[in-house]
């Protein structure tokens, strides 16, 4: 039975490799960009001053979409909280505590991992990565905190405050773009700076940091909600 299962797995793996190989073999890159893409590719670096073209598209040209995505994430976390609402959030199941080494290591590593999360979203306009990715790493420190140290000490309040403040600032910067520059979420309310340095690309680093904080807070809220409810069922 076991051998059967494993051989099926192997065959599947082989099949997927074969498919991937076929896809790769028949792949020919398109030589010309379509109109929108050409506009972004040609004008993007000059207009926004961001070294990472994807970022300038996501934050400036498609800034409204990003706002929508963050809002969807907020809705998801709110709905999860609503659906999983229990009478009292605390759990009373007998648990095996983490070992002492795990707790110490978590205390040591949490600041470092947060720093790397911040690094990812602050440099979003220069390197691959950005607000969503950095926010996910920030949220992963919450998982570490949750499974190693404590369950009840983490403040919902702080998370909600962070989330609300960063979301509000995001919209405010967008409106500032309408007043001071060409349109909603235009990044040129600040100077575009030297190409390729940290303080370049106008408001993009600030917007991306806000997105990162918001995403991190929202994902952490989801993790907290799931954790609090899970205790009720076992």
């Amino acid at each position: 039975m076991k051998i059967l299962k494993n051989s099926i797995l192997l065959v599947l793996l082989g099949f997927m490799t074969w498919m991937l190989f076929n896809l790769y073999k028949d792949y020919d890159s398109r030589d010309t960009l379509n109109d929108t893409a050409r506009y972004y590719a040609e004008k993007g670096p000059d207009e926004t001053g961001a070294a990472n073209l994807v970022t300038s598209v996501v934050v400036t040209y498609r800034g409204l979409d990003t706002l929508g995505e963050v809002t969807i994430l907020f809705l998801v976390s709110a709905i999860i909280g609503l659906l999983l609402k229990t009478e009292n959030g605390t759990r009373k199941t007998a648990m095996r505590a983490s070992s002492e080494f795990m707790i110490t290591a978590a205390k040591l590593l949490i600041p470092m991992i947060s720093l790397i999360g911040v690094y990812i979203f602050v440099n979003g306009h220069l390197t691959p990565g950005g607000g969503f990715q950095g926010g996910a790493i920030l949220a992963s420190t919450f998982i570490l905190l949750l499974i190693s140290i404590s369950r009840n000490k983490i403040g919902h309040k702080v998370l909600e405050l962070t989330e609300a403040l960063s979301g509000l600032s995001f919209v405010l910067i967008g409106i500032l773009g309408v007043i001071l520059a060409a349109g909603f979420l235009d990044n040129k309310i600040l100077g575009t700076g030297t190409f390729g340095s940290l303080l370049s690309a106008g408001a993009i680093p600030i917007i991306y940091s806000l997105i990162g904080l918001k995403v991190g807070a929202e994902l952490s809220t989801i993790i907290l909600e799931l954790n609090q409810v899970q205790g009720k069922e076992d």
Partner: protein
Amino acid sequence: MVNTILSIALLIIGLSFLLVIVRFLIGKSVADRVVALDALTISTIGLIVLLAHFLDRKIYIDVSIVYAILSFIGVIIVAKYLEKSL
């Protein structure tokens, strides 16, 4: 010269990947599979950095840092889940 030696290293890492995947498949217990996964992820860090050299992309080092963090947290979570104490 340098690239030849590094290609051999890449081959050896690929071979060890295959061996670890064999352990992952025969398993016996879930914990055995997790141990294999742990070994696999740590070697992947080395593999990504080797790729960074071959493709000459400095940015892959950032990728491997993030990969190291996420795989560490992943292994810890699976281990805690095994203990039924998540």
